[in-house]
């Protein structure tokens, strides 16, 4: 009997969509964390290789100006520490921690368009600088350009895949 691998049909997987400004940390081995359709947003994926804990943050903007009631997970400067903190709470040890990032594209490219926002670029800069403060260098990154990405993390294996609108998923 032919076995066709189909990631969505596999019944044992539970897909958790990480929406804009959300953050999910889980140690359920069947969980698949996913940020769908990232443009200038960035998915920060954290994984504990030994304890098999996975976490993903869908970061929208670089800086939290402290607007009351706004989610910390939305902003790079507060979301990254929050993600690391939640990972630690689940039992993650920094020594086994792997960080991968994807996203941060500049979608609105056009000759003569003054882009005053540069959200993607600024998101990435902020994330890298917060990680550097924690002495963490991302192990893999698929960032920039002007393409949308869908990112998935398989908590059982720690694999992170990136898919674009016109391409198939590939591991980073």
């Amino acid at each position, binding site marked *: 009997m032919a076995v066709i691998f189909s990631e969505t049909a596999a019944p044992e997987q539970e897909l958790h969509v990480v*929406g804009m400004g959300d953050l999910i940390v889980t140690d359920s081995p069947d969980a698949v964390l996913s940020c*769908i359709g*990232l443009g*200038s947003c960035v998915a920060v994926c954290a994984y504990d290789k030994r304890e098999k804990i996975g976490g993903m943050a869908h970061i*929208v903007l670089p800086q939290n100006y402290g607007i009351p009631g706004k989610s910390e997970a939305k902003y790079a400067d507060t979301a990254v520490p929050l993600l690391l903190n939640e990972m630690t709470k689940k039992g993650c040890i920094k020594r086994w921690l792997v960080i991968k990032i994807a996203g941060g594209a500049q*979608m609105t490219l056009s000759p003569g368009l003054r882009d005053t926002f540069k959200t993607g670029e600024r998101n990435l800069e902020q994330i890298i600088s917060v990680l550097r403060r924690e002495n963490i260098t991302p192990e893999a990154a698929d960032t920039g350009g002007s393409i949308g990405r869908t990112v998935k993390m398989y908590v059982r294996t720690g694999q992170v895949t990136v898919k674009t609108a016109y391409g198939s998923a590939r591991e980073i």
Partner: protein
Amino acid sequence: MDLEKEIQEIDFADINMAGLFGEGVNNAIEGLSQMAGREVKVVSMDIKKVLVKDIPDLFGGPEALIIAIYVEIFGKANANGHMVVVYKPEVAFGLVDLLLDQQNGSTTELNDMENSTLGEVGNIMGSFFLNYLSDTTGQRLKPSPPAVMMDMAGAVLDSTLANILAYSDETYIVDTVFGTKDRQVSGTFMIIPNPSLEAG
């Protein structure tokens, strides 16, 4: 047109904003009419207040392919913003056919010609919309050159949505159906004022 009825359903505090957008979009379609050299009319218009995080779902989910025409708006310090017009790809192709006076279904992909036609749509709609807004508010507003994108809905919209999310969880969108006698096109407008918060 149900515009007035729609407005009645919106909070009193929001009437000005919603009415302004509605009239602005009407004006933008009038611009399109001049570009096409034929009468293009608004068939229906639906102004909705929606949760920002639900917006990609309105276009078939964050991974669905869409075509968006994006124009940045420049005004005085506090009047920066974005205007985005979103079409399903086949609808945008239909619009290109309509404007280039081709048979419906001739356009099947986004190449230079299609890109610049849609860019022109952005130009015309952007300036007509902003003219109306400028006239009404007394603010001088200028559109940037347009960017035309075809990619996943989430990706195309998130940098724009990010700028709304910085200060609000809700925004207005305007669903319109417009067209000539024999052809109709449906698109969604989003006009996003941007308080100087994120402009730096």
